[in-house]
């Protein structure tokens, strides 16, 4: 590479290349910072673009990379366009319901997988992996049938849960339970045996030891699982889209809140952008305060096999 450039008898570029060849250490540093900055820019640019678009107001054509004008009022106006706060509220409530269900069932199962030796443990874990492997579409029709109350089991009909939070919370439980269990299993198995034995010698029951010794000690794991489940549900699209009619009164979630702006007549791009920013805020807050948990949860969930 340097041969081609040095022919141009010591141009600026030539000097630069010479410098780089002579100082490999500096070269790596420069490469490193170039790489880091470009990754950060690629990551952040779509967010920046949303912000520019939101504050620039509507109707401006041929926009550049900088906002023409700054109009913060758009973040108030969107609430009168669509009740985006109701959609976000629904999303958060449904995510919380799912977190509670997953944690209760997941801690029992995670404890069993992590600390109890029973036969068939391996195959059962594999079963969990299979559940998370199948695409959502493979569950859609039966779940739709079940949750809209058109499935009959003997003399009973399933209740019609369409347009209630449960029509989404149940599919989300199915989607996130495997990763909850993988995360909690890892945490439970890392607690030293001695502590539990000591509690048992002191006279606690098995379940007492689980709730008084193991659960408090694995609190970080429980928090990690809760955050991963919350984010997974909050960002989910497929079942949120299929299991609701799209009214905020019918527990439609953020997906419909954002799409409502897209389907509104007229190209109100600044409203779409502002609504997207508002929708990102809850997860952005979580990412800022719980970054460590998210990183840990994602890598453990992924690497657990």
């Amino acid at each position, binding site marked *: 590479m340097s041969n081609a450039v040095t022919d141009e008898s010591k141009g600026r570029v030539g000097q630069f290349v010479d410098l780089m060849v002579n100082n490999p250490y500096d070269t790596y540093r420069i490469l490193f910072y170039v790489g880091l900055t470009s990754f950060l820019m690629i990551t952040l640019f779509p967010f920046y673009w949303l912000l520019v678009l939101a504050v620039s107001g509507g109707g401006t054509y041929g926009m550049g990379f900088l906002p023409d004008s700054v109009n913060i009022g758009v973040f108030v106006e969107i609430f009168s366009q669509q009740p985006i706060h109701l959609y976000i509220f629904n999303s958060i409530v449904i995510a919380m319901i799912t977190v509670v269900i997953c944690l209760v069932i997941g801690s029992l199962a995670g404890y069993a997988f992590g600390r109890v030796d029973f036969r068939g443990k391996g195959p059962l874990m594999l079963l969990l992996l299979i559940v998370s492997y*199948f695409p959502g579409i493979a569950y859609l029709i039966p779940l739709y049938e079940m949750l809209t109350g058109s499935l009959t089991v003997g003399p009973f009909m399933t209740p019609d849960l369409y347009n209630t939070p449960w029509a989404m919370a149940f599919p989300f439980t199915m989607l996130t339970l495997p990763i909850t269990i993988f995360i909690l299993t890892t945490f439970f198995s890392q607690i030293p045996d001695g502590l539990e034995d000591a509690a048992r010698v002191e006279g606690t029951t098995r379940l007492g030891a689980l709730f008084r010794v193991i659960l408090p000690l694995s609190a970080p794991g429980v928090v990690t699982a809760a955050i991963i489940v919350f984010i997974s549900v909050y*960002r989910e699209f497929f079942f949120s889209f299929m299991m609701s009619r799209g009214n905020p009164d019918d527990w439609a979630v953020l997906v419909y809140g954002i799409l409502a702006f897209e389907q509104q007549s007229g190209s109100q791009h600044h409203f779409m952008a502002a609504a997207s920013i508002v929708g990102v805020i809850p997860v952005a807050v979580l990412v800022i305060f719980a970054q460590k948990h998210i990183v840990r949860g994602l890598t453990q969930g992924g690497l657990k096999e």
Partner: protein
Amino acid sequence: MIEKLYRTVSPILYRIERLDEDKYGYLLIGPMILVLSVLAFYPLVRTFWLSLQSDDLYGEHPIGEFRGIDGYVEILTGELNIILNYPFFSLSDPLSSALVVTLLITGFSVAIGTVLGLGMALILNKEFRGRSVARMIVILPWSIPIVIQGMMFYLMFQPSISPFVEPLNQLGILSSRPLGSTRDSIIIVILIDVWRKIPFIALIILAGLASVDQSLYNVAKVAGASKWQQFRLITLPLIKPVVLIGMIFYTISSMKVYGVVEASAGCNTVPTLTCLVVDTFRMQRWATASAIAFLTALIIAGIVMVYLVKFRDEVDTYE
């Protein structure tokens, strides 16, 4: 009151106390088995059973008579293409068939995303000031709602407001209305998928990098190996299994791509497999939709098998 509660609960606790390990384990996973049986295993079996029926568009319930695997055959041979919004697979018009579009998106996205994710992991593995802030920024794309991921790129490729569309159009890369053309929209969907999946694969590779024995690098330095040689001869072979695991998860999730398509270009412009299932389901053709859903799962299984065979070879040669 409490006395009474205690008296009813304590025999139960006593019995739990006396269970052997096997039974105690089964008791604890009982709730999980129950929930997953209803919400996961039953639906899978039911979908498979539905896929063996025929469609009934006029009956009270949209399921007709049993007809075995004929439904699968008709989808694969293209006999059903007339009734589907877009074909499952068609040689004459590959960009309109769900299978080809989905495989294209997955293939390009996994290839580009894995390379970039590896680069990001190597950068984030270094010690530098503000590393935790950098990590925080980097996991943002993964964590935001899928509908907003789609919306961002929808807004970025709107010809009336975006500064990219015209220059890219003049260079001949995109058409003047990229979200209206299938070819351009596929490129955009690949872009979204890469953008949001880099953090995921980077984090997995990062976990792999953390477990590489650092003393190996000291040996390499003494032996006079350059940075590139260190990477190629030490880092890469050691993290290969982890990269393969990351790629498996990446591939599975890209094969299901739906939300970002629905929120950006729309299913008619970029017909993916999930789009096809949803559209068919909405036409009340439950049996056909189930069959396509199961075919999708089978195709993903096939791809995962290829990875696993590679994975085993990799682990074997390493050991």
